[in-house]
């Protein structure tokens, strides 16, 4: 049952990432890949959360996974990494954190506002580290074919 729910959520993440690809004017032939990137990121996020990791850890591992797959797609499709990375990252961007921070801030709940604000920044840093680490790896990790074209 849990697995079914995860699969359905992954599907929803796929659709939403494709929606964002359209907003950023990504060519139609890349939609399948951008959608997959987003879906993989969200699946890793769900699994990490399910295994008892917090949102920060989950965001980190999801960012690593989706940056990895972005680079694989980038070499396979000969397209810039940015295309897959930015579309795929959207499910992870802490929109919820921004909302709750604003909410508590204006409801005069200062301690909650501070803690959600810090949580949001932590998530952003986790995503940044995840992306940064994978982007700094040498390209040999990502080419499906052996070197030499």
């Amino acid at each position, binding site marked *: 049952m849990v697995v079914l729910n995860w699969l359905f*959520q992954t599907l*929803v*993440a796929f*659709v*939403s990432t494709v*929606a*964002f*690809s*359209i*907003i*950023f*004017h*990504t*060519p139609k032939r*890349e939609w399948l890949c951008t959608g997959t990137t987003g879906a993989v990121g*969200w699946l890793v996020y769900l699994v990490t959360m399910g295994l008892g990791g917090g949102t920060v850890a989950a965001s980190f591992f999801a960012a690593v996974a989706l940056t990895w797959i972005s680079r694989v797609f980038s070499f396979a499709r*000969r*397209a*810039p990494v*940015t*295309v897959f*990375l*930015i*579309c795929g*990252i*959207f*499910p992870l*961007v*802490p*929109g*919820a954190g*921004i*909302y*709750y*921070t*604003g*909410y508590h*801030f*204006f*409801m005069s709940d200062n301690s909650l506002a501070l803690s959600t604000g810090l949580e*949001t920044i932590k998530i*952003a840093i986790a*995503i*940044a580290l995840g*992306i*940064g680490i994978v*982007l*700094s790896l040498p390209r040999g990790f990502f080419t499906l074919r052996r070197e030499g074209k």
Partner: protein
Amino acid sequence: MQNTSALELSFQMGEVLLKNGAEISRVQETMERVARAYEIDTFDVYVLTNAIFATGVEQGVEHAARLKHIPSTTIHFGRIQAVNQLSREIAEGRHSVEEAFAILGEVRAIPYSRLPLAVVACAVGSACFSYLFGGTWRDALVAFVCGVVLELYLYWTGKRGLSKFLTNLSSSALVTLCGAALLLCGLGDNLDKIIIGSIIRLVPGVALTTSIRDFFNGDYLSGAIRLLDALLVGGCIAVGVGVVVRIVWLLAGGVVW
């Protein structure tokens, strides 16, 4: 400008990349690759988030060029990819300068998505995210409506040339108002899930990601510019949403969602 200058070509390709949201190192590499392919001597280029500085010696004459542009939020991956393709072909020596200019002209003319498609995409995206963040299907439905309103509003402000600051502030306030109104009419279940889904279109994911990439590539200045951008936009959204929630809360007589 004469259409035979390779320096000008390299420069314009960099401009298209930067305007459509590429990261700094890509702009720089592409410009250098083109310059190398057409054998421009002593080519130097320095790129910032909102400017390109380039000099080079072409046919014995030294040219200097620079560009400033207003940081724009219109991301167009189709164009970035097309310029990328073009630069690869140039590096393989497949185009003369004139041909490359013609292709660049076509790249510039790649249209944006049509409005109805963008509206549907934004609405579907909002609904999906509302669901992913724990909303019910009723929440997703309301977020869908908010998404439609948001994209139409963004289109309108884009035409009016409203500042980025004001756009984010007002549009996040607008979607919150829209979501709250629909909730008070009896649609939807959780205000927070509806709004989280609806504001995802505004959230500075692009600025954040590009900023990270710039930082890790060693372009600290550009990274800092984009990071500030992300923080400001995030702050604007939080303020826009928070103020409206507070007002609605007061008007509705202190109901807590």
